[in-house]
């Protein structure tokens, strides 16, 4: 068979194949640290029951709300609270949960805390009104 016949035959039924050519304008993917021959990261062997066991244990914990509560506190209380949390390895969130849980279980203490909270709310309202009045008077002064 002549070479030209071989070339025509190769066109009909290719015997040599190559991988798809890549576009030089497209950045190559970052180098892969794992074995390049497998084409996929190595999978650790995991027992099927292990995940469900962990999930069962997780289900026993209370669900944490995805909503966050933003707390703005008096400056000194916020500083003291953060220092306290750091010292005892807790967070403001877990400390607040603990206070709420304990206070709720003690009726007298609960009423005492509520009164203190209402007095603080009243003070904040008064302070807010004062800030509002000051701003309005300043604006009037500017406009004259």
């Amino acid at each position, binding site marked *: 068979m*002549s*070479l*030209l016949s*071989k*070339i*025509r035959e*190769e*066109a009909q039924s*290719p*015997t*040599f*194949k*190559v*991988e*798809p*050519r*890549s*576009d*030089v*304008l497209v950045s190559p993917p970052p180098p892969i640290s794992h074995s390049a021959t497998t084409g996929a990261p190595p999978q650790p062997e995991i027992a099927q029951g292990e995940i469900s066991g962990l999930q069962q244990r997780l289900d026993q914990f209370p669900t944490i709300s995805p909503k966050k509560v933003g707390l703005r506190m008096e400056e000194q209380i916020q500083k003291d609270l953060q220092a306290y949390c750091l010292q005892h390895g807790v967070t403001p969130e877990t400390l607040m949960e603990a206070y709420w849980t304990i206070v709720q279980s003690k009726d007298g203490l609960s009423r005492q805390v509520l009164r203190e909270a209402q007095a603080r709310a009243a003070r904040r309202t008064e302070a807010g009104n004062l800030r509002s009045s000051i701003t309005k008077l300043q604006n009037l002064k500017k406009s004259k």
Partner: protein
Amino acid sequence: MPDAPTFVPLGLAGGQGKTTVALMLGRILATYGLNILFVDADPQASLTAFLGVEPSPDRPTLLELISRPPSKIPLHTAIYPVPQNSNLFLIPADDELEAANSYLASSGTSLTVLRDRLYQAGEAVDPGDRVASSFDLIIVDPPPERSHLALTSLGCGNLWAIPAEANVKGVQSLLRTLELIQSYQAKIPYGQLAGVIPFRAKWVGLSPTETTRESIKTMEQLAGIERMLPHLLESDVYKRAINDQVLPRDLGKPDLEYPLLALIDRLKPALGEKASLIESREVVAR
């Protein structure tokens, strides 16, 4: 069977007529019964498209020939038969050939790698399976940039021609291409400049336009009048011939092939015994 020589139309600018000259020359020689191997060395792959070849994504192209050894990609596996012409064959290109420039830049073998591949240098091949001796002429269509692919095209040529537009851009391209040849001529002593072909020359009535006349005059001064070949006229017939995959003669304009026949005359000494096929046809035509 002697090895086929390689012809390369060179030009360091786009739109200079490299692909037109390559394509028309190959098609004309095929009408004489010569077997032509085209090599598309331009990532734009115009020659591949004009010949109606669609490279398969999983078959080798020029990129694999240049960047992988003969043991992995034998030369004949990258050659496609051209549809509807049993004398024409092609090593095709596609966009991804651009990657060959990076490979060549790092390999340091730009000037020799394509010639070594086409002539199977260092390969143990049966004489009947030698690609270069199975064809009568190899025609390489280089890219227009001054790139490593242009250098590897230059390096594989026994015969070069410089088509250049008959305007300032063409003169500039001719100058740069002559400088490139001069820079590398000592390293490729087998290569020689067959001629300069002014391209898209414009005539009004019986006279060339001033731009065409002045440009050709400057080209004569740069390359030497003895190297000048007849010019290819500005004509839609070439474009139609390319689109229709035919020759100007098939569109009733055989005169437009005259500059290419003049080029073939210059190539004849390198074609050896095959040149007699061309001469005998010309005798019959008379």
